[in-house]
């Protein structure tokens, strides 16, 4: 995973709440067996509308998405994160995230930062005045700046550290493999197994 520290790029406003992962990427695009190539599927239904924010010239090449509360709720599909990443987003800021989405994003180098609702509204207002303005999202300082306005976002220490270091979870866990084996040695024998087939 690539290291993430400071992200600078065009900020796109998504002034909607409850953007579930079915909206981020509809199920018909989940049939692929690859991990890349999902950029065209992002917000597929909404992008059919020429007025949709990502279709506006000012927001081409956007890297930072500023969304309303409850972003990424619903289905566990990690494809939602892949689609955002493939499209070019490196950070999503929202007052509240779906738990699974937030977990998924941290594992794919997409920064999901929690901002307050007033800050979301403030950032939207700044962008409305100056569409195409860049945002700076600083993971080290946990700040986001757009124009003259700067504020903080929340991200848990562990995810922040993993993003900063670009660490892979499986390697981290396997450092504790002896502990896993030890745990397995005293698991109750009544616990069901899938094999052999009964």
């Amino acid at each position, binding site marked *: 995973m690539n290291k993430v520290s400071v992200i600078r790029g065009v900020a796109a406003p998504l002034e909607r709440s409850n953007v*579930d992962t079915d909206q981020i990427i509809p199920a018909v695009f989940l049939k692929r067996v690859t991990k890349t190539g999902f950029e065209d599927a992002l917000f597929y239904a909404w992008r059919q509308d020429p007025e949709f924010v990502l279709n506006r010239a000012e927001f081409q090449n956007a890297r930072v998405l500023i969304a309303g509360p409850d972003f990424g709720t619903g289905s566990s599909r990690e494809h939602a994160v892949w689609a955002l990443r493939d499209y070019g987003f490196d950070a999503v800021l929202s007052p509240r995230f779906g738990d699974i989405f937030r977990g998924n994003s941290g594992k794919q180098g997409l920064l999901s930062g929690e901002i307050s609702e007033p800050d979301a509204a403030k950032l939207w207002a700044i962008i409305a005045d100056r569409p195409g303005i860049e945002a700076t999202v600083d993971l080290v300082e946990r700040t986001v700046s757009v124009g003259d306005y700067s504020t903080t976002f929340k991200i848990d220490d562990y995810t922040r550290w993993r993003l900063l270091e670009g660490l892979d979870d499986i390697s981290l866990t396997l450092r504790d493999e002896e502990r896993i084996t030890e745990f397995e040695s005293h698991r109750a024998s*009544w616990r069901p197994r899938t094999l052999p087939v009964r």
Partner: protein
Amino acid sequence: MGRTLAEKVWDDHLVTKGTDGTPDLLYIDLHLVHEVTSPQAFDGLRLAGRPVRRPDLTIATEDHNTPTLAIDKPIADLTSRTQIETLRRNAVDFGIRLHSLGDIEQGIVHVVGPQLGLTVPGSTVVCGDSHTSTHGAFGAMAFGIGTSEVEHVLATQTLPLMPFKTMAITVDGDLRPGVTAKDIILAVIAKIGTGGGQGYVLEFRGSAIRSLTMDGRMTICNMSIEAGARAGMIAPDQITYDYLEGRPHAPQGAEWEAALEYWNTLVTDDDAVFDAEVHLDADELEPFVTWGTNPGQGVSLSEAVPDPASYPDQNDRAAAERALEYMALAAGTPMKDIPVDAVFMGSCTNSRIEDLRAFASIIKGQKKAEGVRVMVVPGSARVRIEAEAEGIDQIVKDFGAEWRFAGCSMCLGMNPDQLAPGERCASTSNRNFEGRQGKGGRTHLVSPLVAAATAIRGTLSSPWDLRTETVGGVAESGRKA
């Protein structure tokens, strides 16, 4: 201080305890796999040269993409077929037990696990599917994970996780006939909102919950995710044990006794403290239905489409306005005046045998409303066979509805079972998101009883709206016989 059920299960699966903001490492007892969220995970293992650590704690089925008609023919959609074939190859390469289309144990992953007796109290269950919360009905800690986590569990049989907060949802009282587990959970979500459970494990408690059968309890826990919660749980009791005993993979003999001894400890201690508490009165509940595009946008069926202007919160108001536009509904329209084009009876929320029985009890001897397409999709091949042995398939066909093979089907429309743009559906599934059942499709979430009554009348209806002699005979879906 005492501990909650969720905390007990968590503590019993700790491989390592996190320190200084690092997560705990939790052991996973059962990993369910399906074709959609696993191909990239298996690829990751291949690239890193890693095996599956515990194939004997892993099981796969084909469900999301599978057709529900002509299952003996090759899958017509090429990308769907590729995904299924990829799972089959991965299962062979990594030694995973797989129940393919046509196999007697094939079906929706959350129907298959409990049916085989693999989901047991006090276990940790994960799957690359948010509705894994279903398994919490057994007093298991069960939650959906992303594909990176699927790979992590395949490789290590563990997951690094931050502890969840706990929320008690107490539902006391008696459900009226015609009101079911589905109505309880829809009412809970409407009350706390789609973000209300975020960061929490919900524990459902109270006399109304205790009176539910396992199928009803699974419906409740299944939709915990729609309140934003990672998991929902119900403490095991005699109903749980009666369901499990004798199932193929449930413990037997002395092992059963040892398991029971442990399972009986899986209750929230009297002096345990929840981080949040919610109460609901079952006596007051009516059949429930959603009007909008998220599962929290619901009302009693006897009410009308709400006016967005009545919402004090600006985001809620904007969401309601957008939802009404998408749903093509006007504020103030009585819910019962809304006609439907389709009725979908199925999904991991409501496709078990009791759900089918409840549906059949209402439609028996009736004809569906003209012009309404009605599709009945059992949750698993076994449920289908069991229903056929009871004659439910014939009741469905005589009614004028379609009797299909098992799978996720129109819940998410990954296979050909989809709504056409603009079509309106009363659906026993779990999500009314825009386009969920097909691009431009409009979904109203309902219970099997409401789905059946709606299929008869052609407009959103409860069993209470049918002739009195039918109401008297209403089977109470999800209630103890």
